């Protein structure tokens, strides 16, 4: 898996549905028919912020993720990108 690019804009894939759960959230992709788990409320906050923020780094900052924790979040977002749960947002 290529390193996740924190400095571009990301969004939830349009075919993905999100359901908040106590532990974080469940994501379901209607195209791939796969289920993914967002395993913490903090990561869920980051995922939710992606759409409104210019970069994933900004989304992490908005969700209160400290610099030291950034690599962990980049890895988690990379996993979601690899399963097409999130995708790069090209400028409209």
């Amino acid at each position, binding site marked *: 898996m290529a390193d996740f690019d924190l400095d571009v804009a990301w969004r939830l894939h349009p075919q993905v*549905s999100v359901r908040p759960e106590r532990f974080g959230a469940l994501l379901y992709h209607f195209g791939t028919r796969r289920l993914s788990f967002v395993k913490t409320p903090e990561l869920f906050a980051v995922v939710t912020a992606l759409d409104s923020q210019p970069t994933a780094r900004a989304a992490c900052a908005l969700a209160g993720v400290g610099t030291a924790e950034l690599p962990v979040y980049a890895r988690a977002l990379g996993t979601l990108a690899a399963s097409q749960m999130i995708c790069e947002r090209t400028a409209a």
Partner: protein
Amino acid sequence: MTITSLVEEFRYGLAAPICLTWELTYACNLSCVHCLSSSGRRDPGELTTAECQRVIDELERMQVFYVNIGGGEPTVRPDFWELVDYATAHHVGVKFSTNGVKITPAVATRLAVSDYVDVQISLDGATAEVNDAIRGAGSYDLALRAMRWLADAGFAGFKISVVMTRQNVGQLDAFYALADRFGAQLRITRLRPSGRGADVWDALHPTAAQQRELYDWLVAHGENVLTGDSFFHLAGYGQALPGLNMCGAGRVVCLIDPVGDVYACPFAIHDAFLAGNVRSVGGFAGVWRDSELFTALRGPQSGGACASCSAFDACQGGCMAAKFFTGLPLDGPDPECVRGFGHEALALVDAAAAPRPSGDHSHRGRGGPVPVSIGPRPTGAAAPVGSAPRSVPDRACDQNPLAGFVPSAR
């Protein structure tokens, strides 16, 4: 970031089910010998179109991503396609199981273009001989015809759904090749002693050697084959299989039956696992969130006799329904425990006293002949094919009152 084990989280239940099975009708054109819902005839109390739509509205509000629709044969409901369209328009995806009877080239073309509908064709033998012995004459051709039309219509990745039996474990590679031939994906699930499956369990469930064969095959092919997580009892062999490896009943899984009854899982159609009905005031959401049964299932569970076994962390004691309908205690071993404890435990229970599945919508007069006579069965009379051995009923007066009583080991 602290990450508690997801399985740990799932044990305490989710806001809505991940895997919701909804059986739309007990009506079916077939009479499969192992039918887990004893289907055949429609029930007069089945949910109406409007009631089904209200359930779908609830599922949308609860953000249930998709439902697994089955039966019976769901496509024989006259409003089936209307309900599929209603569900997908309300953001509830549909995976439906069918024997193929209503799949036509036109239907296949329609299904192929929808992202929100997935199809599972049921098939229990890679050859007509093996399949039709379980599902009935002509059912293999029916399923193959549907598969060919789906493939011709460009429906990539539909599922071929197989219940593993003593007769078809040896055909695993052939099933895999068949799925490949149609651009489909193979899904294999465990036979349960539920519904009519209780009557054929002894004759159909895989042998211990076949269970090992199945496990090894799954370890080799696991990533490309779906299992509905139904073989977690085999994790006792060592390596965990892909999936959750836990019993999801009432926690991430449940069943809505054709009359709206909500059960803990599709294999547990019995009053002991009935949580409520979607027609009640709180609807399905109320049953899912607040029913006594589901609340209890989400509480701490006792491993009972299994807790001290070194395989318990892997197999979790196995399948609740398989234990229940073979007469085993719920906190004991699975009847197919890979360490053999289920086999030992079964020797101590009275098979005739095992709980019977609630409700029977089987076609009358189909299947094997059922000998009916008054009084004790003549000595030496053959039991119906596949039925568990049953002893001749004790006479009321000429035996010790404790005749037939076997004290439990526990």
